[in-house]
């Protein structure tokens, strides 16, 4: 292809999408000069840091490595396909930092090789899904909060730090149709183990003992129903009973309440039962008013992965294709458990966060397996999690700015990505499709060989 000189004009691309947190702000104006993003207007500090980072390509110009040595993309794809075809129990995990289009491709690949498929190595997500499957959830899109909420509760979550524009766009200061005065139309409560940045902005902060969420939530359920507590639970929760009672009254008497809770809720003793308590409390409150629950989700396209896996298999992540059809059991078929038990004999990591702190046990397991890593993070390609070297590493394009596609916000609202610069790196979706195509060829060869072995009838 003839190269055309790149004009050094600066071009502004409005309404671009950032997915550095679950807010997925779609009002970012990106300025691109000479192929580099030089400004990211409207983005928060987290977004700024990401957009203005280099996203540079490795100095040696390679895009793919096998055992640490640079190779052609085709060679890497061939090796990746071999690994997956030869495995008896391949594990494919990650997916969370991909557009939906690539996630769809990844689920198809897992189906073809009979892999176990999961999104992350954390199990809080699976625990929430378990709670959801037990009792359901009363929830809404974030615009409902903006337009209607007069009571906002943050439980074990600090969006001022983790989701910087959440307050401005949806929950604290946002002015909506029935909340024209913004913050003045809302009462904000924070329940947390520490006085967080969000707590400082709240009308009421309730400091709770670590690991006592279930007790407090269950007591609130009783209070909402008018059932008196037999004895004080202040010792356990650290919150005065009267403060909890006050909160329960406030919850019942609001017009539209929302309970945002953090993934940490499922990380302590009680696990999915804690989320279940939160979801049931919110359900109960709908006998009195409109009340909603919403877990806060992290960066990337976690909600997209949940949705894609679910529409293609019928189940949320934690799906095993090993018997030729999807089976689901969060906990049993979760990546962390499978690696922990040493069941997988190969692993493919698709758009995991390579900087994520892998536990030593997991690192040890992964180091001993044939592994394939697809990531857009050039810095952590060859030694992700600082500790093991993937057999195959492939560097993919930063999809938020280069690939295009769809991402889901934490409330399952889908948003479009539109490229602002080209990338010499391949899109993850195309790489996955090429690996699958190669696997198909290898599987056909294998079938033909087996038939020939049997000989003519």
């Amino acid at each position, binding site marked *: 292809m003839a190269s055309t000189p790149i004009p050094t004009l600066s071009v502004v691309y409005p309404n671009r999408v950032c997915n550095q947190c679950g807010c997925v702000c779609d009002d970012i104006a990106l300025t691109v000069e000479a192929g580099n993003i030089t400004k990211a207007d409207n983005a928060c500090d987290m977004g700024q840091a990401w957009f203005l980072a280099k996203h540079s390509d490795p100095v040696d110009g390679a895009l793919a490595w096998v055992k640490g040595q640079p190779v052609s993309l085709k060679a890497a794809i061939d090796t990746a396909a071999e690994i997956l075809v030869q495995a008896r129990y391949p594990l494919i995990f990650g997916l969370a930092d991909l557009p939906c289009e690539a996630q769809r491709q990844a689920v198809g690949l897992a189906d073809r090789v009979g892999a176990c498929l999961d999104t992350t190595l954390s199990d809080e997500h699976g625990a929430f899904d378990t709670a959801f499957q037990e009792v359901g959830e009363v929830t809404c899109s974030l615009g409902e909060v903006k337009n209607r909420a007069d009571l906002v509760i943050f439980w074990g979550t600090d969006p001022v730090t983790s989701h910087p524009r959440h307050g401005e766009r949806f929950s604290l200061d946002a002015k909506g149709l029935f909340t024209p005065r913004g913050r003045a139309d809302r009462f904000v409560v924070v329940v947390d183990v520490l006085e967080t940045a969000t707590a400082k902005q709240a009308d009421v902060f309730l400091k709770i003992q670590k690991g006592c969420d279930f007790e407090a939530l269950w007591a609130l359920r009783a209070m909402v129903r008018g059932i008196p507590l037999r004895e004080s639970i202040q010792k356990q929760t650290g919150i005065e009973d009267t403060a909890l009672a006050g909160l329960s009254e406030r919850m019942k008497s609001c017009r539209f309440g929302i309970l945002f809770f953090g993934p940490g809720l499922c990380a302590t003793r009680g696990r999915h039962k804690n989320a279940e308590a939160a979801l049931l409390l919110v359900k109960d409150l709908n006998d009195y008013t409109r009340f*909603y629950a919403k877990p806060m989700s992290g960066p990337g396209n976690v909600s997209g992965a949940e949705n894609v896996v679910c529409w293609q298999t*019928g189940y949320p992540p934690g799906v095993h294709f090993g018997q030729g059809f*999807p089976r689901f059991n969060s906990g049993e078929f979760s990546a962390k458990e499978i690696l922990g038990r040493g069941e997988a004999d190969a692993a493919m990591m698709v758009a995991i966060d390579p900087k994520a702190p892998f536990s030593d046990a997991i690192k040890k397991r992964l180091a001993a397996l044939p592994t394939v890593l697809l990531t857009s993070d050039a810095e952590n390609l060859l030694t992700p999690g600082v500790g093991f070297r993937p057999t195959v590493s492939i560097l993919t394009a930063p999809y938020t700015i280069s690939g295009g596609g769809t991402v889901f916000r934490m409330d399952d609202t889908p948003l479009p990505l539109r490229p602002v610069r080209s990338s010499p790196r391949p899109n993850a979706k195309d790489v996955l499709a090429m690996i699958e195509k190669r696997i198909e060829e290898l599987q056909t060869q294998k079938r033909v060989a087996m038939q020939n072995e049997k000989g003519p009838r």
Partner: protein
Amino acid sequence: MGLLKISQAIIHDPAQGINGSVGDLWIKDGVMCPPPTDLTVVPDRVLDARGLVAMAGGVDMHCHIAGPKVNLARKLRPEDKRAALPIRRTTLTRSGTVGSVPSTFATGYLYAGMGYTTAIDAAIPPLSARHAHQEFQDIPILDKGFLILLGNNHYALRQIAQGEAGRLKDFAAWILKASGAFGIKLVNPGGIENWKSGIRSMTDLDTTVAHFGCTARQIITSLAQTVMDLGLPHAAHIHCNNLGIPGNFATTLATMQALEGRRAHFTHIQFHSYGGHPDDQSLFCSETARLADYFNRNKNLTTDVGQVLFGETTSMTGDGPVGYYLSKITGRKWANSDTEMEAGCGIVPITYKEKSFVHALQWAIGLEWYLLVDDPWRIAMSTDHPNGASFLAYPEIIAQLMSKNYRDEILARVHPKVAEKSHLRELNREYTLNEIAIITRAAPARMLGLAHKGHLSPGADGDVVLYQPDHDRRRMFEFPRYVVKSGVVVVDNAEIRQTPAGQLFHVAPGHDHAALPDIRKWFDSFYTIGFDNYPVDESYFGHHSQMGCGGSLES
């Protein structure tokens, strides 16, 4: 694709008045064509259809198969899938799960396997259109489209309250195009907005919508008129107020009357035909006869049934309050998901039981509708999948409609009060094969305004189903011998042979661009996504056909 000949089939093509005569069918490049005049032409493939019944591909005009609500239901119900046989991966097909809410690939295979080639999802919030389109791309074989929810849309409510018919029309045109939708659906018009505002009382036609000031009646007439003014292929698709509530037939009748001759489609009418009183279950009874009598006399109206069958399924609806009340009645898990500015949603598992008076009466009321409507061209088969039952129940419904004896057997089994509270026992009508062809393909295609579907005339899509005649009608319609989609044999002897992508049907009526600044201002103030990020571009549509608007509506 070339030339396919289907030889010597027993053809049931009611649109052409062909009722079981033997003949050949020809499909060239995916489209029905006349027999070649040149007798030396050799078809690329011949299907020997001697002794087989041929009909056009089935058309499901109202089902829930994609989008946020359907997907939430999938996630909610792992237990529902374990009770069903899974779909196994083959070299050609993807694996999947079934239960009451099948996964996407499974949905395509199962519909095709049953001889259905077109399905319209009935309830997508426009904000989630981008999601629905992606699921559609993972549902193979079927041609698809969806209706968008507008009966509680804030911008629409505001225009209706202010009597801005022009602005309403422009907005409707804009949002249809922006979402890549096929038509307009009203769900509990005004009632969901009231529910979201915390109002618990029932919504009747003259109930005012809080904060907006218009009534349900105004929403219904304005949107029905808008659909006609835009010349959309399909009439306003109405899910009436007070679904499932005893005594709701009065609301349904009033809604029919309120239309004053405007075209409208009344969906899952079974759920809206109840007599009695909300507070006294003993009074619960069928009012189908009264509604069907009005319906028969007013040709502007069409309907689909929303048949209930016994067993386990999942209730899912854009009618948020229905989800709440069902969860109170059943005590089962409840998922609710409200969409800003646009819609509600409720999901609750439900088990319809033969021995439950209410459930058995719902079953009887559905059948009464099929049997009391004189003109089969105005009634379509539906279960409101999966609300009354899965779409997989269609062959069972056919068996019940074609045999009075079979109905009586079931009636003898179910709650004894049903026989006295409905007219089912007195209804001797039995559907003919031609009438089945009408209510399962010809009529729904015509009601949807899909001129190339539901019949086998030259120019129609080459979707043909060949059934092995069988006195067991259920078996006959469950397992067609061949299913041809756009000239491709997709099912042969209950096996999927090819999995072409289906196409999307959508509309894009014109609008006055001067209307946009006001819509943009509304978005900027109250939505949480940007106006420019709202429209879904054609890259999401896959293979698609834009349907004409404003043309002749009835063929």
